[in-house]
C-alpha cells in the first residue's frame, strides 16, 4: 500500500503529460487524494505498539545489499499524514490556469516527499530525497514570482545538492563500500549493539546534509529567497513538508545511527539550534516583506526541533523525566504543528498578495474590516504559531522545552527569548495588516470565498485537535 501511495502522484504526473492540458489539475488532485486516502486508512489501522508496520521489502540489488524497503512506524506516521494532506491542499490551492507542466512537477515533488518519508533503505531514500528537490527547483524557476526567482532557485539547488553530496559521501563511508547494509532498521540495530561505530567525519557529513534542509543557521541562506520567490502553493510545501524532511532525517538517521557522536556533540548542536532560534526571530523583526518574514519565523520554529535532538544526545539515563522520549515526541509533534500552521500562513499570504498585488508589510492596514474571515483565520494561525496553549504548537514546544531544560537549563532559558521575539514578530504582522484605519487606496480586499475557507478547514481542525488533545496524536509515536 505504501508503494501505491508513493507512486500515485508520479503516475498522475505521467498522465498529466499524456492527457489534454485542461485535465491537468484534476488528475493531480486525484493522485494526491489517492495518497491521502491510503495514508488515512493505514493510520486508522496503525497499532502504536506494533513497531514497524505495513512494511514491504523486496530484494533489489543483492550484490550491494540494497533492498526496496518501506514501512510506517512512530517516527514517520504523523509526518506522512502531514505530507499527503499538505500536498493535496497545495495542489488544490493552485489555480487551474497554470500550465500542465506545473501540475506534473508538483505531483513529482509530492512523490519524492512521500518516498523520502517512507523509505527504510538509504539507497532509494536518497533517490526520493533528490527527486523532491529537482521539481522544486523548476517550480521556483519557471513558475515563481519576481526577478529574483532564477537566483533563488539556483541558490536553493546548490545548497541542497551540496548538502546531499556530503550526505551521500558520508553514507558511502558508513557502509564501508558495501560491507554494511544500507537498511536503516538493520543499521540502527547494529548501532544499538555497538557493532556499528562510524567516525566523526561520517557523522558530520550526514548531519550537514540534513541541516541544510532543515535549515540551521548559517546554512539557511537559500531559505528566505526560495520561500519568497516560489509560487504560494509551492511555498506551502517547502515550509510545511520539505523542511520536515531534514528534521525527519535527524530522527531516522542521526539519533539511531550515531548515538555516541550525538552524545559527544549534542551540546554543539544545541548551541547551533539556539543561535538559529534567536537569529530567525530577530532577523524576522526587520523584514518588510511578508513572505520573507514568515520564512525567518519558520527558521526559528524548526530550530526548536534541532534543540530537542541535541537534548536527546545529552540525556543521562535515570533522570526525573524521560528526556529522550519527551524530546523526540516533542519533535514529532512540532513537525506536525509547524507544518500545518506555516503552510496555512503561507497560503493566506499568497491569497493576500494575489488579491492586492503587493507584498510589503507597510502596504496594508485595517484588513479586519475589509476581510473579517481572512483576518480570523490569520489570527488563529498566527497565535498557533506563537505557541498559544490549546493550539497545536504549544504542546510540542512544552515537550521540547521540558526535555531540553532537563539537560541544559541555561541554554533553554536563553532560547525562551525566541518565544518572546516570535510573539513580537507575529503581533507586529497582525497589527500592520489587520488593524488601524483602512488605507484610502487598495484597502478593500475581497474576503475569503467559501472554497478557500473549506480548503483551510482541515488545517484549522487539526491545529485545534492537536492542541486540545495532543495525547491522541502522540499515541502514534508513544512506543
Amino acid at each position: 500500500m505504501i508503494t501505491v501511495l508513493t507512486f500515485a502522484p508520479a503516475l498522475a504526473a505521467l498522465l498529466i503529460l499524456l492527457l489534454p492540458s485542461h485535465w491537468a489539475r484534476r488528475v493531480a488532485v486525484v493522485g494526491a487524494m489517492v495518497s491521502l486516502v491510503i495514508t488515512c486508512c493505514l493510520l486508522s489501522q496503525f497499532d502504536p505498539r506494533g513497531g514497524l508496520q505495513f512494511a514491504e521489502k523486496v530484494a533489489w540489488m543483492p550484490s550491494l545489499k540494497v533492498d526496496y524497503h518501506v514501512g510506517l512506524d512512530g517516527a514517520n506516521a504523523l509526518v506522512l499524514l502531514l505530507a499527503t494532506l499538505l500536498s493535496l491542499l497545495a495542489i488544490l490551492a493552485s489555480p487551474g490556469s497554470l500550465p500542465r507542466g506545473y501540475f506534473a512537477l508538483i505531483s513529482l515533488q509530492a512523490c519524492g516527499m512521500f518516498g523520502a518519508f517512507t523509505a527504510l533503505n538509504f539507497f532509494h531514500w536518497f533517490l526520493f530525497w533528490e527527486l523532491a528537490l529537482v521539481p522544486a527547483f523548476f517550480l521556483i524557476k519557471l513558475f515563481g514570482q519576481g526577478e529574483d526567482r532564477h537566483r533563488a532557485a539556483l541558490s536553493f539547488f546548490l545548497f541542497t545538492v551540496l548538502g546531499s553530496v556530503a550526505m551521500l559521501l558520508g553514507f558511502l563511508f558508513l557502509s564501508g563500500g558495501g560491507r554494511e547494509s544500507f537498511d536503516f532498521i538493520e543499521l540502527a540495530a547494529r548501532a544499538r549493539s555497538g557493532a556499528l561505530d562510524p567516525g566523526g567525519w561520517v557523522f558530520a557529513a550526514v548531519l550537514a546534509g540534513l541541516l541544510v534542509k532543515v535549515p540551521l543557521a548559517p546554512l539557511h541562506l537559500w531559505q528566505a529567497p526560495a520561500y519568497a520567490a516560489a509560487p504560494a502553493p509551492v511555498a506551502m510545501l517547502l515550509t510545511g513538508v520539505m523542511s520536515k524532511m531534514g528534521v525527519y532525517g535527524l530522527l531516522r538517521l542521526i539519533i539511531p545511527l550515531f548515538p555516541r557522536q550525538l552524545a559527544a556533540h549534542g551540546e554543539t548542536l544545541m548551541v547551533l539550534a539556539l543561535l538559529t532560534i534567536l537569529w530567525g526571530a530577530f532577523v524576522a523583526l526587520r523584514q518588510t516583506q511578508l513572505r520573507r518574514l514568515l520564512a525567518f519565523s519558520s527558521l526559528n520554529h524548526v530550530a526548536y526541533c534541532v534543540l530537542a535532538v541535541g537534548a536527546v544526545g545529552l540525556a543521562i539515563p535515570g533522570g526525573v523525566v524521560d528526556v529522550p522520549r519527551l524530546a523526540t515526541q516533542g519533535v514529532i509533534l512540532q513537525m506536525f504543528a509547524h507544518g500545518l500552521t506555516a503552510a496555512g500562513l503561507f497560503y493566506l499570504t499568497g491569497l493576500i498578495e494575489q488579491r492586492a498585488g503587493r507584498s510589503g508589510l507597510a502596504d496594508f492596514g485595517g484588513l479586519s474590516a475589509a476581510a473579517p474571515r481572512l483576518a480570523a483565520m490569520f489570527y488563529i494561525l498566527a497565535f498557533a504559531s506563537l505557541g498559544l496553549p490549546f493550539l497545536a504548537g504549544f504542546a510540542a514546544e512544552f515537550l521540547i522545552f521540558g526535555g531540553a531544560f532537563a539537560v541544559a537549563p541555561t541554554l533553554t532559558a536563553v532560547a525562551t527569548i525566541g518565544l518572546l521575539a516570535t510573539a513580537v514578530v507575529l503581533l507586529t504582522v497582525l497589527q500592520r495588516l489587520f488593524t488601524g484605519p483602512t488605507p484610502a487606496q487598495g484597502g478593500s480586499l475581497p474576503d475569503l470565498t467559501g472554497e478557500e475557507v473549506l480548503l483551510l478547514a482541515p488545517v484549522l481542525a487539526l491545529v485545534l485537535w492537536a492542541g486540545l488533545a495532543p495525547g491522541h496524536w502522540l499515541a502514534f509515536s508513544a512506543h
Partner: protein
Amino acid sequence: MSASTLALIPCLPLLAALCTAGMRNGRRAAAVAIGALAMSALLALWALSQAWTGDAQVFPLADWLSVGGTRITFSLRLDALSALMASMVTFVGLLIFIFSTGYMAHDPRCARFFCYLSLFAAGMLGLVLSNNLLLLFMSWEIVGLASYLLIGFWFHKPSAAAAGKKAFIVTRLGDLGLLLGLLVAFTQTGTLELYAGGAGLLEKDPGTLVWGVGAAKLVSLLLFVGAAGKSGQVPLHVWLPDAMEGPTPVSALIHAATMVAAGVFLVARTFPLFEAGGTLPLVAWTGGVTALIAALIALGQFDIKRILAYSTVSQLGLMMVGLGAATTGAIGMYHLFTHAYFKALLFLGAGSISHGCHHEQDIRKMGGIARAMPVTTAAYLCGALALVAFPYTSGYFSKDAVLVAVYGADRPLFYLCAFSSLLTALYVTRQCVYVFAGAHRGAHAPHESPAVMTVPLVILAVFALGMGGLFGGALQAKLGAIHAAHPFPVIATSWAVALGGMLLGWVIYSGRDLRAPDPLALVPLQRKLWFDELYAATAGRLWSGLTALAVLLQEMVAALAELVQELAQATGQFFSRSVDGRLIDQLAVDGLARRFHEGGRAAVRFQSGFLPGYLRWVVLGTLLGGLFVHWLLT
C-alpha cells in the same frame, strides 16, 4: 459535586464563546453569553457551598498527554480559595456582562465582543479551578489572549491596537518567567499537579539545586515574575494603564476585578512554595513599592480611566504586601475580593459617566455630574469610599487586615503602605471633586445612563459597602487566616490616613477654579515617572541592538556565500576560458588537429595527378634508395 459538573463552570462560557463566534446579532449573542455565565455562576455558588462545609477535593479530568513515564493529568481543585474565586469571577462577570448590553448596544461588532468576553470568562475560570500548574498556565495564556483581543477591540484605532500588543508582550515577558518556573518544577519533581494525595508539587519538597539556588526558591521567584507581569507590579506595570484603550466593561472585568488579580491568586495558590523558598519578603516589598509609585502617578493623571488604572496597580501592590507579610495567603486574597467589587463598580461607574458625557474621559472637561447622573454618582461614591478605606466599608476591613499583617512583619513597609493609603485618599478625593462637583465644563450636557447600566452599579455598590462587615470574618477564616491582635497604632493609622487624605484633598480642590493648572499634577507624575521612556532607552535599545546584530550577521553570511559563489563562478570561467579554451581546446585538441590538417595540406601538393611529376619522384626515389642500400652494405 462530580468532576464533570465542576468542569462545566469553565466549559459553559467556552461553549458560549464558540456559539457566538459566528453570530452577527448582538442581542442574541449577549443572551447566549449571559445565560451561560449565569449557569456557571449558579454552579460556582453550589461549589462554594460544598467547599464551605466540606474538605478540599481534587477532581481528575483527563490525561492531556503521557510520554514515557510522564503523565500530565488535568485535574480541578475545589477548596475555599478556588470556589470563592470562581464565585467572584462569575458574579462580577455577570453584572459586567449585563452592563455591557447597554454600553455596547450600538456597536456593530457587539456579538464578537460577547464572544471574546465569554472566552475570557472560560479562561479565567479554568485558571482558578485548575489543580495543575500547566493547565493553570494554559488558561493564563488564554486569558491573556482575550485581554489582547478586547483591548484592541476597536482595531481601527491605532492606539488601541498598539496597547493590545504592548499588553500581550509585556505580560508574555512575565509569562516566560512562569514558564521557566514550570519547567524547573517539572524537571525537578516530574509532576505539575499542585495536590495529588501527597505527591503533588506543593506537597513535596522540590529540594535540589538548580543554578545554585534551591528549587523551591527558584520556582517561587520565577512564578512571581509571571505574577508580577499579569498583576502589573513594578517594573512590569507599564501595560496596564495603556490597556484602558479597551471598552470600559473590559477594563472593569479584566483590568480591575479579575485577570490582573490572577498574579495575586497565583501566589496565594502556590503559597507553600513561597514559604519554603523564603521569597515572601521580596513579594511584600515589590508590592509596597508598586503601591507607592502607582498612587503617586495616579495623582498626576487627568483621564478618568487612567486614574483608576493606576489605582488598580496600587491596590494590587497592596494585595502583594498582604501575601508577603502574612503566614497564609488569606489576607491578600481578602483584599482581592473586596477590591474586585469596588473597583469593578468604579470602572463601570466611570463607563457610565463617560457614556453620559458623550465618550469624554478627561476629568477637566467634566464637573457637575452629581446633578445630571444621580444614581451613577451615588454608586460611584460608594466605590470611592471603599477604595479610600473609609471606616466600615469593605475596603476598610481588608486594607486594615493587610496593615495589621505588615505592622507585625516589617515596620518600614508598614509606613510605606500607610503613606500610599494617604495618597489613595487624596487622589480619589481629587477625582471626585473634578468629576462631580461644580458646574459642567464640557461641551455637551451629560445624561443619566439606562437602567441596564445603573442596576449593576447599585448591586455592586451594596457589595462595596457591606461585604467586609458581613462576610469578612468568615471569609478570612475559610481562607485560613490566623486571627491576629489588632494593635491600636494600626487602627489609628487606618482612620487617620483615610480621613486625613480626604480632608487634605477637600482643602486643596474644593472651591478651586478647576480650569486652572492642577497644583499636584507635577510634570513627573503626569509623565508617569518616565517609565516608558526609560524602557525605550534601555530595553528597547538593547532589543533593537540585538535585531541589528542579527541582521548584520545575516548580511555578513549572505555576503560570504555570495563571495563563495562568485569565486566558484570565476574558477569555472577560468577553467572554461583559459584551461578549457586555450590549453585544451586551442593548444591540445585544436592545435593537434591543425598540425594534422597542415600536414595533410602539404601532402596534398605531392598528389598533383601529373604523370611526369610522379615519374620524376620515382626516379629520384630509386636513386636515393639505391644510394641508401649501397651505404648500408659498405
